[in-house]
């Protein structure tokens, strides 16, 4: 199967690309092309098939260019992992319109635009599988993360609507909802000591008393993309160490 992974240049996306590459051709899309190139090179040097492309998922023009850049050897796309995401940390009364747009457009509009671009190939083949990266924050709130929580709740909503619209046409759509995972996004914008303090704060709240690893999210994504999840659609699976149960 040919699988497109957005946000594939780092963190959960990169771990998923590496996990899938022993069986699938992976297309690693990232706004940071150098990061996507590095992940693809690592996979290729390990004997796998990977292609790196550049994309800003919040831009229809960029998504169109990405689709044109994906070569025939990776078509048709049978799997899609909508994973690109960014974060800002601002209390609601301080969220800027710019920051809000950046977060919501990347997570929510990004899922819409990339799915709209890829789904025609899946519909033509009458089969396909999509996984969207939602979050524990699709379900709960968190102070200072208003834009992120709103965006992730919206991603889960889109997941359900996509499942309702496409399941009967042979395409399974689900979400993965990670809890606190030790990724570059979590550390971004924080000094190392501050990042470590943040990790310790998370760990104290997680029933398992440890952070999750990107590979542990990748394993869930792999499950959802595979035939093992043949009767699962419209669902969200939370690798979160027991932080949110519902």
């Amino acid at each position, binding site marked *: 199967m040919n699988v497109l992974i957005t946000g594939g240049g780092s963190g959960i996306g990169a771990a998923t690309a590496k996990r899938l590459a022993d069986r699938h051709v992976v297309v690693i899309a990232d706004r940071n092309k150098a990061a996507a190139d590095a992940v693809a090179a690592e996979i290729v040097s390990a004997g796998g098939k990977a292609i790196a492309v550049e994309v800003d998922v919040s831009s229809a023009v960029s998504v169109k260019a990405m689709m044109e850049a994906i070569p025939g050897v990776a078509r048709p796309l049978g799997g899609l992992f909508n994973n690109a995401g960014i974060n800002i940390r601002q209390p609601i009364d301080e969220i800027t319109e710019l920051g809000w747009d950046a977060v919501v457009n990347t997570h929510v509009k990004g899922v819409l635009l990339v799915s709209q671009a890829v789904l025609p190939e899946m519909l033509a083949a009458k089969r396909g599988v999509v996984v969207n990266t939602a979050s524990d924050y699709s379900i709960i709130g968190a102070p200072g993360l208003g834009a992120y929580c709103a965006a992730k709740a919206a991603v889960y909503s889109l997941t359900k609507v996509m499942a309702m619209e496409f399941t009967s046409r042979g395409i399974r759509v689900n979400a993965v909802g990670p809890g606190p995972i030790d990724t570059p996004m979590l550390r971004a914008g924080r000094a190392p000591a501050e990042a470590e303090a943040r990790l310790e704060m998370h760990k104290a709240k997680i*029933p398992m008393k440890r952070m999750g690893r990107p590979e*542990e999210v990748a394993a869930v994504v792999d*499950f959802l993309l595979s035939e093992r999840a043949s009767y699962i659609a419209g669902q969200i699976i939370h690798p979160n160490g027991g932080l949110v149960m519902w």
Partner: protein
Amino acid sequence: MGESLQKGLDTSGLAYVVTGAGSGINLAITRALLAAGCTVAAWDVKAGALAAEKSARLHFTAIDVRDKAAMVKAADESATRCGGIAGLVAGAGVMVHAPFLEISEADFDRTLAINLKGPMLTVQAVLPHLRAAGKGSIVMFASMLARYAGLNAGDYIASKGGVLGLARTLALELAETGIRVNTVSPMVIDTPMPQAVYSRERMEARGKSSPMGRLGTVDDVAAGVLFLLSDDASFVTGQDLRVNGGERLF
């Protein structure tokens, strides 16, 4: 199963205990575990279709999940024979098909004893061996009906709602021990339980009207259970995996 065969399960010979293993979904789980190279301690009141299974890695014990002493003995024997226990599928369950006011007290007590107290007692019997191993995975069966309700199954739905609470509590209590606890909530699966209540025509119509155009199969559910048992779910605990064909979303 090819590409879809679950990895990350114990194949060194440790036992996976499966209750209710003689029929339905639990039978499929037992077969899937055997196919994946695992060893299974299969418990049920009757061997059922398991009697025809020929595998040196299958150990059947006639047992009722209301009998804690028998389960403690069986768990100890399994641990001794197999070198330990890797996981538990507390799957045994029953259902009485009756309108609310016609559910007898005896039937209600029996359903709760098997579906809710049963997993609790089974865990109490098996848990010491998982603690000794310092890891393990427990899967219990809830149901989509625990969230949506349905007609003529008050006893069953009450018990399955209870399982959700029981499993989450256990997940919290065990989270730091390396032992994970999750539930699976199937929609209508083509098994003896609904077959005893609904006609074949009604079952087929039910499947056709679902988003996937078919009923769920025991293999669909077994694959989800094997995922939760495996190391692929290493950061997944306290969760409810809904294997429902996209039918009920919220």
